[in-house]
């Protein structure tokens, strides 16, 4: 299941701290998930207070 950061992101950076394989990058102000590097472990999903990380197939 793939994970995406939506506009609900508050830019707190928790997801990037949680991602040990550095699949979440900050570009200017926005955090994005590199879908090539991401292995869909879900670690970022559980720590997102804003509910800004959504799942898809």
């Amino acid at each position, binding site marked *: *299941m793939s994970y995406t950061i939506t506009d609900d992101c508050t830019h707190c950076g928790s997801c990037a701290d949680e991602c*040990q394989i550095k699949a979440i990058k900050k570009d200017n102000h926005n955090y994005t998930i590199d879908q*090539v*590097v991401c292995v869909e*472990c879900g*670690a970022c999903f559980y720590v997102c207070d804003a509910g800004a990380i959504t799942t898809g197939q």
Partner: protein
Amino acid sequence: MHDLNSVNNQVDIARLEMTYDVVIVGSGPAGASAAKALIGSGLDVIIIEKCSLKRDKMCSGVILPSAREFLAENYDEIPEHVFTEPRLIKGSRCVSTNNLQGQVVTCPALDLGETLPNPEHGFNVDRAEFDYWLCKESGALLVDNCLFVDCKQNGHDISVRVNHEDSYCKIKTKFLIGADGPISRVRRSLFPDLDKTLNWIALYEEHYEATIDLEPEWQYWILDPVTFGSFSHKDNILHLNATASRAETAKKTLSRFVEFLQERHGLKIGKTTMKRGIVMNDMPYRESYCLGNGNILLVGEAAGFVRALDGITSALVTGKAAGESVLKSLQSGLTPLQHYGEHSLVQAEWKICKEVQPRLGELGFVFG
């Protein structure tokens, strides 16, 4: 002892914000085993789990001989609904992306490396059902959708901050056991800088409705010049995974393994039913075990214990040792950590992990 018959493992905030004797973070085999060791002690034990239960986990889900022995000694028989087909795994076999003839080689078991393949090598289980059964056997209160945020120690009291159903609350406890896997938040709360010193390894898995020209009663390892992977059958679904390397991402490696299996072993894929991954670290390979601090213990992969590619046995063993160490500390006045570090099971586990890790290289596993 708490009622574990509730289906959704949900409790209200008022019940969660009580004082417990032991808080266990993580509902895998390590946490469940720690909780089981505390059964009958009169202590109030709560297991918190960040996922919704029953939660599945990326894992071959093969219960190897060492884990089977532990379960036989410490648990009732594994219930039927926990098993997947084929129920018994005969052993491990290897295929190599270097071998264009598609040769299949039988290799030793990967728990102690000394158990030869036999008809009763491993139990093939559903990890969601297996882990849930282990937790229920413990008799502890089990709460899901409950993320460990951090903890603070104040003398003998520990305040555990959690996020449960999108609300923050604090649980007070005397003892905390981190059974929350390789990306342990309990470990990070204790040692914030440790994670930055570790090398992290990504693994990616897909499940397919598929056929392949290989017997389903074996667990297969894929050896490769830069990395490795594995595949196994569970209820007619093929689970295939790959490990990332410096050379390529886990997803790219998996695509390459699919092509290899299609060309050499007749893999035919229908529908893809699951895509997911996990992240592990090199603590087991550095022998840099991290047992905790005072009244806070780390168990299983959170502590760095993995027997080569088998994490379940280490989790069960060190979980039991942690539970027993808490009980001993109540009588001795020493900290649980003092007992845990000296526990015979932990000492034995250290020795086994050290013995087993180098055998992976000897068997042709490459960590790129």
